[in-house]
């Protein structure tokens, strides 16, 4: 049923020597990149996009990219478990419990539960994609331009309003991305040049590779260079990576729950991986028979979130493959990769490129297995990568960034653009503008414009042409909720809550604090850019109040870690 029969067919594609090799390369790279903080799968795939010029078969290239996508999830947990950082700062949910476990001598079990959980979640997730994709694609085929446009607007709104707490800045970032996407020849009939200022090389627009690499890689490298942290740690040594019977018994339910939690979130534009991971942690803590262990090394706190992470990554493939809609930065870069090959992701993708899609999914299943084999026994070995000094890592990033940007068009103009966009990326990081909306804006913007103009052309200029299907109306309703909720919160919910605090103390409304809220000044609890603002959405104080730990509610909170 569903796509399972096609999936079997996909194995024929995936099991060729060449594709197995690419899968292996992909997962190796992905794990290495996942282990090293500071580089993410999105940046890595962006850096490798130029390779698509040389790899003729898109199937092979995507098998490699997908390997990197999944592999990145595995490597990250190794680092967070084995890196014995001084002090108590934990920046990712798994790190809290996994690291604590390692410090108590249970590193092997933490690594094992993370790897196996990732494998189970990744496998189930991929199978779910195979099951659901054909059905969703069939439904999606009926969608028209107004519907696509609505969904893209949803993606825009979602990406600006979930990341961090400052929507103004997220929106600014999105607009910057849209502006960059505007450069070039108009895709409509007029064929005029927009924002090119007479520079011929800009006529084709600024290549997505240059933008992605500039914003992610160069911007990050410049920012890190300006504030290079001189801090090191030791690696916790571990024996053979394995688990006891009791550990298995405690892990299997969190694995499954994590998968169930992560997949839907990954599949939805507003989702991502941070929120479900946090939810998984909280759920496991509530359901655990050993809740007192949380905060000191509870294995469920590793099993659940790890599975959630991987399931979320798999979930992200559903909208990407069926609608051409990216839900994360990595998915957006994968979308750009599709465009490099001239493939239009969307509901027709399954019809037009079955070999690609099913080969990809089959390869992911194989890749997951390889990753398990790679990570279970070899995790301590991967951790040795952490001995590479940061100067080499970032010099390497810049090296490959320039290499890739030049290879696009064999033109130094691209290198100059790369530098300029890198500077923009630097400034964005300096002033708390998240980078992800910009990438989504660059990649999705032009496509959204095409859909909008087509919809209006069909309706002959009538604006209602954007709203004339039930689907688009529903989507816009969802958007309205997303946009208006914080205002409702501010004018209705919060005053009510304040009235309930008769002691007169202004209570900090923790309930609507997004998981992106930092617990301490300057400390990042999640790997998302933070912004503390006087923005209407989150603070209703007439005077600006700097956020400090004194005003946060006192509750045992896994996010709150003390910095010495």
């Amino acid at each position, binding site marked *: 049923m569903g796509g399972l029969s096609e999936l079997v067919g996909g194995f024929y594609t995936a099991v060729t020597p060449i594709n197995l090799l690419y899968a292996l390369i992909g997962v190796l790279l992905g794990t290495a990149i996942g282990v090293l*903080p*500071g580089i993410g799968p999105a940046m890595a795939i962006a850096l490798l996009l130029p390779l698509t*010029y*040389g790899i003729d078969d898109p199937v092979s290239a995507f098998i490699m990219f997908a390997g990197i996508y999944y592999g990145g999830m595995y490597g990250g947990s190794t680092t967070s478990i084995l890196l014995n950082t001084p002090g108590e700062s934990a*920046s990712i949910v798994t790190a809290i419990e996994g690291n604590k476990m390692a410090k108590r001598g249970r590193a092997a079990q933490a690594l094992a539960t993370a790897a196996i959980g990732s494998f189970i979640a990744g496998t189930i997730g991929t199978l779910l994609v195979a099951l659901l994709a054909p059905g969703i694609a069939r439904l999606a085929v009926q969608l028209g331009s107004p519907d696509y446009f609505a969904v893209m607007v949803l993606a825009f709104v979602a990406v600006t309003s979930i990341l961090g707490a*400052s929507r*103004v*800045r997220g*929106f*600014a970032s999105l*607009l*910057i991305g*849209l502006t960059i996407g*505007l450069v070039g020849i108009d895709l*409509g*009939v*007029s064929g*005029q040049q*927009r924002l090119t*200022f007479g520079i011929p090389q800009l006529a084709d627009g600024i290549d997505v590779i240059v933008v992605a690499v500039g914003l992610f890689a160069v911007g990050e*490298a*410049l*920012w*890190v*260079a*300006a*504030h*290079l942290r001189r801090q090191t740690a030791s690696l916790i040594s571990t024996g053979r990576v394995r688990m006891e019977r009791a550990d298995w018994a405690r892990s299997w339910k969190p694995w499954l729950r994590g998968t169930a939690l992560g997949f839907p979130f990954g599949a939805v534009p507003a989702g991502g991986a941070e929120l479900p991971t946090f939810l998984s942690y909280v759920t496991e803590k509530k359901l655990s028979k050993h809740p007192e262990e949380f905060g000191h090394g509870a294995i469920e706190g590793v099993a659940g979130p790890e599975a959630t992470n991987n399931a979320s990554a798999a979930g992200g493939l559903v909208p990407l493959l069926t609608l051409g809609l990216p839900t994360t930065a990595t998915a957006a870069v994968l979308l750009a990769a599709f465009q490099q090959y001239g493939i239009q992701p969307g509901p027709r993708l399954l019809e037009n490129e079955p070999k690609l899609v099913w080969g990809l999914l089959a390869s992911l299943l194989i890749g997951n297995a390889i990753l398990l084999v790679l990570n279970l026994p070899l995790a301590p070995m991967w951790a040795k990568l952490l001995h590479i000094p940061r*100067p*080499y890592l970032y*010099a390497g990033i*810049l*090296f490959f960034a*320039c*290499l890739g940007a*030049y*290879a696009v068009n064999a033109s*130094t103009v691209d*290198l100059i653009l790369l*530098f300029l966009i890198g500077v923009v990326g630097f*400034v964005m990081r300096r*002033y*708390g*503008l998240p980078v992800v909306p910009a990438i989504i804006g660059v990649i999705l913007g032009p496509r959204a414009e095409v859909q909008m*103009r087509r919809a*209006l*052309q069909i*309706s002959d*200029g009538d604006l209602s042409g954007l709203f004339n299907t039930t689907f688009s109306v529903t989507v816009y309703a969802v958007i309205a909720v997303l946009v208006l909720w914080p205002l409702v919160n501010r004018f209705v919910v919060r005053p009510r809550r304040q009235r309930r605090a008769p002691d007169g103390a202004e209570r900090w409304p923790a309930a609507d604090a997004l998981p992106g809220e930092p617990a301490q*000044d*300057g*400390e*990042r609890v999640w*790997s998302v*850019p*933070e912004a503390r*603002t*006087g*923005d209407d959405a989150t603070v209703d104080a007439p005077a600006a109040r*700097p956020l400090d730990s004194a005003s946060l509610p006192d509750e045992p909170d896994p996010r709150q870690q003390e910095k010495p």
Partner: protein
Amino acid sequence: MISRITRQGQDRSEFLVVLFLLALGVLVLVDAARLHSGVGQREPVGPQAVPFLVGGLLVVTAVLLARDILRGGHGEPEGGEDVDLSHGNDWQALLLLSAAFLANIALIERAGWPISGAVLFFGCAYALGSRHFVRDPIIALVLSIGTWYLFVLGLGIGLPVGILKGIL
């Protein structure tokens, strides 16, 4: 900990972003104004629609951001595993990094990638604090020559060979 004083100082410089957004918006609007609908075919929404929208929104966002800053809002500089925000910018590192970048741009077509790439890598590593003067150039050359071979021979993507033509 970022002190209140510092934060207020930083607030002022955040207006740079407002200015940038404003300038960008004006730029987009001005450029859009000179566009016209396609000749011949009557398009309800021409090429200037989205630019006008984006430009307008940029200006609006600039205003909203200014309002946010005035109300005490603050864009938090991005933290991270490798970032230590307790001191100011390391301008020397940034300048050196930019210099390495520009050196690559200048050299890549004249001297070829194997050389310009090595200079780039070495320069960046130096800028970031690495002071191994034997090890670093070796790594840099291995990378630049290796990637040259990979791209040109393995993938068929052209990279300039410059003065090493004939040797490689």
